[in-house]
């Protein structure tokens, strides 16, 4: 069965687990990481799959992580999820090359619609 791949990077264990379960019900295959470092150490830039990226994390925060991804040229689609309210979040996200910015708590359907709407998402498919 074809499954769409999603990566989640969030320092909160609960959020990771919940998103994994929720997206699982939408038939996504989700892999979660507690830090960007762990993510970069595990997933190579040429492995496809969109990334749900928490903004506020110790160490490399969301913005810094996106900078690295952009620089890597992998073209990985990134959706920011943020616990902290940011008025210009969407604009800022688009500016740095991300495809979206969602405020926590994230509504499942909204998230899935965003992921599904991504160009090339059908290519992020596990063999």
């Amino acid at each position: 069965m074809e499954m769409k791949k999603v990566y989640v990077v969030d320092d909160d264990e609960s959020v990771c687990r919940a998103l994994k379960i929720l997206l699982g019900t939408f038939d996504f295959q989700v892999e979660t990481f507690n830090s960007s470092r762990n993510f970069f150490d595990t997933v190579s830039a040429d492995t496809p799959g969109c990334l749900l990226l928490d903004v506020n994390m110790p160490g490399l925060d969301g913005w810094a992580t996106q900078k690295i991804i952009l620089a890597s040229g992998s073209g990985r689609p990134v959706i920011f999820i943020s616990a902290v309210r940011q008025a210009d979040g969407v604009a800022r996200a688009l500016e740095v090359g991300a495809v979206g910015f969602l405020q926590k708590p994230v509504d499942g359907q909204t998230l899935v619609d965003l992921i599904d709407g991504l160009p090339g998402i059908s290519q992020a498919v596990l063999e």
Partner: protein
Amino acid sequence: MIKKSVGKVKPGKKSLLNKITRQSLEDQVRQKTDELNVKQGQLQLGADREKIAEEQIHIRTKAMEAAADGIFIIEARNQAFLVVYANPSFYKITGYMKGDIIGKDYFLLYGPDFDQRVSHEIRKTLEQGKIFYGEMLSFKKNGEKFWCFLRISPVRDENGIVTHYVGIKTDTTLIKQRDMEIAEQREELLHVTRVGKLAEFVSSLAHEISQPLTAILSYAQAGQRLLVDREPQLHEILQFIISDDQRACEVIRRLRTLLKKTKPSLEPLDINILIRDTVLLIMPHITARNKVLVFNLAEDIPLTEGDRIQLQQVILNLISNSLEAMDERSDSRQLTLRTFLQDANSIMVEVTDSGCGIPEESLSKLFSHFFTSKLDGLGMGLSISRSIVEAHGGLLDARNNSGPGATFYFTLPVSGKDL
């Protein structure tokens, strides 16, 4: 007496008598001469003493005339307290002239705007023979207000009766103004700090709470999807969970908007002056702990742009933390404040203490929200300090010294504007 006895003597015994008489004459002369000498000595002594006394009076008078404080003397004989003397400083302080004061009732000097309770208090104290001292708002001849510290003491004669009063009036307007300014600044800083602390606390709380709220929403929604077309009651229950979760999120959202961080209001600042002003506010804490503050502020530092109150909070926070670090050790007393131009665009501010230093494992957590929650009145969390510095376009960090203690340092951008 001598003539008589000489006249009755016979010629034969004349020479003997002459000898005896001459002897007693000489003795008497010697005696009288001695007495005269003593008297002269006494007179001279008296004159010398008088001269010294005069000189002393002269010097004392000159001293009173030259004193920087206002000095005045009131005669206590009648019910009215009449001024009999005032020195030049008194005239200067009160704005009155000789003709206005000498021979007039002292209490008239206060003018109609003066607080009657105070003059009543002064009168009562003096009538009881006690010393009056107090600080009060007074009025010059031209109506101008000034703060003064007044002390009036009774002057007694040999019988202990009060004959006069001597008063000293010190103009404390400038000191008072400075004290009030400092008190105001402290108040404002405390207020902003309290609000800042509360906002920071709520912000952290909101952040922490929204994580499980997010998870709950996702779990409930996942549950609903798994139960689609089955178990309608469970489905409904999950829906309730979702809507209550959303209600909680709404509360958080409203809390956040309520305590939004104020953007810094920028003005050109001289960081050295700001540091010195801030130190004035915390100086009592420093001296109370017996610590020594060393300034190493570079002279030609360019201006930076910033929010004065916010940057003061940062400096206070760093100094306050350093003082606490040095509390443990009585031998560490030096706290150094240093500023210098790091490069063309940034100013560096360093606060160095000789205290207990920062444990290695704490270094990375130092600036996070929940690392310390000391409710010291003047300081704020390092996390707030860091946000403030970053909002100004700078960076705040800490390192341990090669010797004892640690250094907290932050940068501020050089102002682009010329003044």
